[in-house]
């Protein structure tokens, strides 16, 4: 059946030469200036795939995530969702478009309203974007809680009653309430402990399989990217310095910036540790502790 769909084969999301400028206003002492946060970014993500955007702070990766999630309008270039050009600068995205693209933010302590019960958090997107009746909204919210590994009885609790990992599950559940095709995840696991990170990554993998979701996954952590991504884009100072499949990029990074990222990533390999311990012993015996 999917083959008969005329849209089959078109990427779920595509960016063409995306540019984002921020104007820094002048003051009595300084002239105003324009900062180019993104400079001509091209990308495509096919259905059911994960594109990881890797970069350091200030690279523009979150700026790009906000553009893809239809939060900010780019200053230049085109964004295509499902093969159609989307310009939120001219037309505010309606419920149909909002339902296609959803976002999960980095900090689950900041992205949930402390005064809103979990049930209301999950039902709000339905109230805003759909005409689903109240009883069904509740039903769907409870079902979604189960899907992300929480319990229906969590419905009436407040965010502060949950741990960081559970809150991130709630944020993921909220993003999934409208059955989106595309999920933009901005550093979704970097605020979490290692073991909780593993659980959330597993959950994301399961949900992707179940709902055929497309992910744009922003991260600074190469080991996480290696685990979850199909394609990787490395971005530095607003420029995509390298793009490719995960296998190609990890096997043979081309750009010096990508290589410096790899070189800086700590290695937990036993042989590497053995070498370091030996090196340290050698320097110590050569030059006794003063």
């Amino acid at each position, binding site marked *: 059946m999917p083959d008969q769909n005329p849209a089959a084969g078109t990427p779920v999301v595509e960016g063409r030469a995306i540019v984002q400028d921020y104007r820094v206003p002048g003051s009595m002492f300084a002239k105003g200036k324009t900062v180019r946060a993104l400079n001509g970014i091209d990308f495509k993500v096919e259905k059911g795939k994960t594109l990881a955007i890797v970069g*350091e*702070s200030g690279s523009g990766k979150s700026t790009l995530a906000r553009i893809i999630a239809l939060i900010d309008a780019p200053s230049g270039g085109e964004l295509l969702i499902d093969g159609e050009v989307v310009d939120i600068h001219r037309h505010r995205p309606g419920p149909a478009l909002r339902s296609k693209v959803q976002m999960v933010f980095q900090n689950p302590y900041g992205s949930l309203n402390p005064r809103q019960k979990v049930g209301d958090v999950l039902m709000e997107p339905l109230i805003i974007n759909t005409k689903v009746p109240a009883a069904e909204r509740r039903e769907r919210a409870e079902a979604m809680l189960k899907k992300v590994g929480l319990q229906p009885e969590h419905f009436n609790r407040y965010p502060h009653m949950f741990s960081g990992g559970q809150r991130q599950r709630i944020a993921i559940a909220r993003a999934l309430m409208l059955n989106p095709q595309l999920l933009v995840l901005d550093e979704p696991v970097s605020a979490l402990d290692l*073991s909780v990170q593993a659980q959330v990554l*597993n959950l994301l993998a399961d949900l992707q399989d179940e709902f055929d979701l497309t992910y744009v996954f922003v991260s*600074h952590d190469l080991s996480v990217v290696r685990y979850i991504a199909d394609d990787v884009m490395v971005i530095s100072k607003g420029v995509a310095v390298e793009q490719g499949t995960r296998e190609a990029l990890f096997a043979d990074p081309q750009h010096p910036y990508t290589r410096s*990222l790899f*070189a*800086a990533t700590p290695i*937990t390999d*036993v042989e590497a540790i053995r070498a370091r311990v030996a090196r340290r012993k050698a320097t110590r015996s050569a030059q006794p502790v003063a």
Partner: protein
Amino acid sequence: MTNKTGALLTIKNLTVKFATATGSFTAVDGIDVHVDRGEVLAIVGESGSGKSVSMLAVMGLLPDTATITADVMTYDGRDMLKMSPAERRKLIGREITMIFQEPIASLNPSFTVGFQIEEVLRLNLGMSRRDAHQRALELFRAVGIPEPEVKIKAYPHQMSGGQSQRVMIAMAIATNPRLLIADEPTTALDVTIQKQILDLLMKLQEDYGMGLILITHDMGVVAETADRVVVQYKGKKMEEADVLSLFESPQHPYTRALLSALPEHATGDRLPTVSDFFQQEGA
């Protein structure tokens, strides 16, 4: 004072309890810690493991609601439990110093970084203003801050996270301490900056022959720095081993769980989680 090896800090059966509205909460439950001179000890754990609290207890930085008990707490053969507050203050900040996770939050936004580091030198070492200024410049060079003469006049908000952490490190080594406690020193930083800061810490540790206690949740940081590792979970020590044995043949199920939860160790589609391991072991 002359022996180059041997215990620098020894703690036995440290327990820290907090009085809360709902009763007493035990954050650290009978932990033993010892660090030798010139040794790098990593204390690893996730949030709530009590890894920071045990070191804050040593530094005397916990609030009044905390009750700290220990059988032994000695620094360089001196009993810290029997010290007067004045004696303890002489030790803390001079022989034992600490750096924290949020470098920008650790600095006072109202004063230049130069003023803050010179204050440390004047108060702890009784230096004159002029000497302190010279020494501050030397320290800035030692920790690799570019253009020290310019940066010494900067306010914390004018510096990047990596530079602020370098300032904190300069401050922490200003008094030539023999033990430096670093609490998640690179968690707020980018990987390339993390690498620079870890390299700097290891270089200073070797140059000065300091003992270094590195508190972290990051197994990668442990692998790149530690001589010996203590793994903590929910206030208890799970395992203690030298770094190579810990990664090669972890003994405790929790350690095994932590190591296999590293995404780079993933073998199949799923990452094993801690609960998987505790279920298997029936713990």
